[in-house]
């Protein structure tokens, strides 16, 4: 009787991958900082609202209070702790950012792959559709949409932002697909009579996965800027702990750009946006090296 051992190879590969990840992260401490920041924001998004009582406490005698130990970023117009507002507001921002990124990447990748692989009529139709999407002015359209759609859920926000943002990725994925489809391994797969589904799903997609993953993270930052900008302009529904609403109220209600009282109220959400963006950029830097063998420094 012969006993065949199966799984050790994939397990070893996985172990090697994670060792490589750790090695890449350790090589530049900034990358570890990036992972730390993203983890912190993910934690705030998941557990943030559980850390504070609901509704958040208010203090009528401490409106726009200066930063202190009790209120590291001061208080808002109602005397609510600004840090608590930032922490509890993270969930909406992250959820909307993730939803946007997933939709952007899923749509962009699918359309880019199909157009690049099939070429011909598919390519023509899909790329004209992409061109059309790229010509739609996003901000004015969102301003108009906001008059009929209140975007109370972050997923609704994500759907709209995602539907407006897939064009760039679709074009980039198509270019990569056009290049890869001429390579030997794709020729071989075709020669073996493998199905289109197999070639696209198993051969082309994994080759582009690192690029797509990095774009997804970058799309998160773009979505954060866009949604915070819309809330800042005051065209989206009021939610006291939304970062964009906080910026709006600090500037237009508290006069944060004119006087110092509301400045911490302005700086807290700004700092959160900057930190989150920085974290994502540092993680993208690490991912670039993890997935791109040419960049690996031995």
């Amino acid at each position, binding site marked *: 009787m012969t006993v065949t051992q199966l799984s050790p190879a994939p397990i070893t590969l996985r172990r090697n991958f994670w060792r490589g990840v750790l090695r890449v992260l350790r090589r530049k401490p900034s990358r570890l900082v990036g992972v730390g920041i993203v983890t912190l924001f993910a934690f705030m998004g998941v557990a943030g609202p559980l850390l504070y009582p609901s509704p958040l406490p208010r203090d009528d005698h401490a409106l726009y209070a200066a930063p202190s130990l009790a209120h590291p970023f001061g208080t808002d117009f109602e005397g609510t702790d600004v840090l608590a507002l930032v922490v509890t507001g993270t969930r909406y921002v992250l959820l909307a950012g993730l939803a946007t990124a997933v939709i952007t990447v899923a749509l962009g990748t699918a359309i880019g792959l199909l157009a690049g692989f099939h070429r011909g009529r598919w390519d023509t139709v899909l790329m004209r559709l992409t061109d059309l999407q790229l010509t739609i002015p*996003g901000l004015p359209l969102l301003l108009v949409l906001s008059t009929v759609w209140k975007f109370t859920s972050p997923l609704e926000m994500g759907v709209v932002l995602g539907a407006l943002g897939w064009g760039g990725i679709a074009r980039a994925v198509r270019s990569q697909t056009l290049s890869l489809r001429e390579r030997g391994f794709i020729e071989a797969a075709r020669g073996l009579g493998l199905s289109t589904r197999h070639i696209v799903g198993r051969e082309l997609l994994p080759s582009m996965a690192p690029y797509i993953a990095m774009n997804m993270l970058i799309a998160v930052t773009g979505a954060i800027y866009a949604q915070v*900008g819309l809330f800042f*302009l005051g065209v989206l529904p009021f939610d006291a702990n939304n970062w964009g609403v906080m910026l709006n109220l600090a500037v237009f209600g508290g006069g944060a750009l004119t006087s110092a009282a509301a400045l911490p109220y302005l700086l807290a959400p700004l700092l959160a946006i900057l930190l989150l963006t920085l974290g994502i950029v540092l993680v993208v830097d690490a991912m670039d090296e993890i997935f791109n063998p040419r960049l690996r420094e031995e």
Partner: protein
Amino acid sequence: MKRLAAITAVAVISTASACGGAGGSAGSDVYTTIDGAKQIDATAPINPFNPQGNTFLGYDAMSLAWPKNDPVDPNRFYPGIAATWTVTPDQGEVVVRLQPAARWSDGKPVTSEDVRTSIGLAYTQGGTAYAVDPKAAGSAADVQVLDAKTVKVTQGANKSNLFLRNVLSTVVVPAHVFGGLLPADFWATLKAARGSGPAAEKAKTAITGLAQKVISFAPAKDVSAGPFVLERVNPGEALLVRNKYFYANQNVAPERVKVLNYTGNQQIWNYLISGKLDSAPFTAVPTDVLNRIRQTQGNEVRKGFSPVAVSMAFNQTHKPYDNVHVRRALAYLIDRSQVTKVASPEAGTPAETTTGIHAKSAKSWLGDGLGDLDAYQVNPAKAAQELKAAGMTQQGGKWAMPDGSPWQVEIHVPASFSDWVSAAKAITSQLNDHGIDASVITAADYTLYLDELSSGRYDIGFWLMALGPSPYNIFQRIYGSANGWQLLAGQLTRVPPGTQGNWMGGPETLDGVNPGTLTGRLNAVSPEEQRRIVGMLAKVTNQELPVIQLYDYVNTQFVSTTRYTGWPSADSDVLRLPAGVWMQLGMIKKGGR
């Protein structure tokens, strides 16, 4: 997505840089201010009939007279182009005598013909004293030139006690510039339009058809009868120079007036902090910014009466707000002092109670009767009683509808009104504290907000009210077209709730009183009868709460004593008039600290 983010960022950056960059240094003979009524559009015509027109009331645009800031009496004025006027007791006839020395900036005299032409042009725009429809209350029936400096305006059969105010508010334009806009047979057409039948309809159409032509008319240069005349305008500012023919030139101190443009309140705050403005009309200011403005040498704050209040209005076609007990319960839960402290600490005073009237006017109108009204002090126990009386139920510490379904209080405000947003948030916080699930919903802008409000889409919305001093104007905000009473062609009609802009949807009678009819009568009755009606309306408003009055506005203005002196004192009756009128009256003098 990146593009979208970039556009957003550019929009924000351009706004910020615009806020910091405009304006200019002010010389000693230049008076620098802003126009609180509009932002400057350099492409707009020099035409007072155009809402964006580059004319500035009190400086180069002149009314016959200027209304005083009286809490109760709407018929008190300072002279403008009219030196004096007389009015019959029923306001049936107003005779206006023009300033004998009044001349246009091109040297031609201001005559009765100019006033008549201005009235003719006002007819093309409709409204107030110059409605084409003869049945409209308070509309002028005849305009007679008695001599070169005297005009008689006669009111139609459907009289209004606001006729004098509306006639004296007429902005006078030069006939030799604007007269060509009126066809040669205009007055004959107007006479025909005030009749009946198809010919009258045709004539009405002909007159209202002139509206756009009048609005878009763009004279080559400004011809002003005011103390100043427009010299140039660009997107950043308008410059006006002295009109050497102004009838009271000896009263006017500044040689030039610079009207700075602004993109928002923040830019006005920056102008004030940098000491650029000699005066600024009402501007909403947070406490800390106000303190910064005060720190600038010479800057002083002038506070005065402003006949405007803000309220939370109910759509009574939506449940449970059709039930007065629910409205009262909410009134007992809202701490108006705390709301005012959060939302408008510098430009608001908490409403003493809900009367429909600004507190300062209410004292004059109601006297001791004010004390008999329910003050709706915060009282959670009473609120709970009222909610139970309305059949509301409590489930897990939260109030629910009588059938047990969740009760979600949604308060709507326009996003651009920062004090309303803060006030609404403070109210929702208070309601949430007492087990009522409440949230704020913002509309992108005020126009959209009013559109959605009037279409009945909101349960509760913020609403400006108490727009005095005329008692009719005060109460028509509550018992006017928004609540189903429409005054058309002199006839008061009632439209069903939820239709034709009747979004408040209140009942036609309250405690046996028809508040809409009473409000309509305020236009035509004697002062004694007005006082009696105002008392009844205030009482019924206090009991039935179609709105909850939150805070009364305070007219907070700014002046600088650095270059000029003689500013109006706090609570002065000129405070709501443009600074150009202060100059005409000889108040503003050169000098300063």
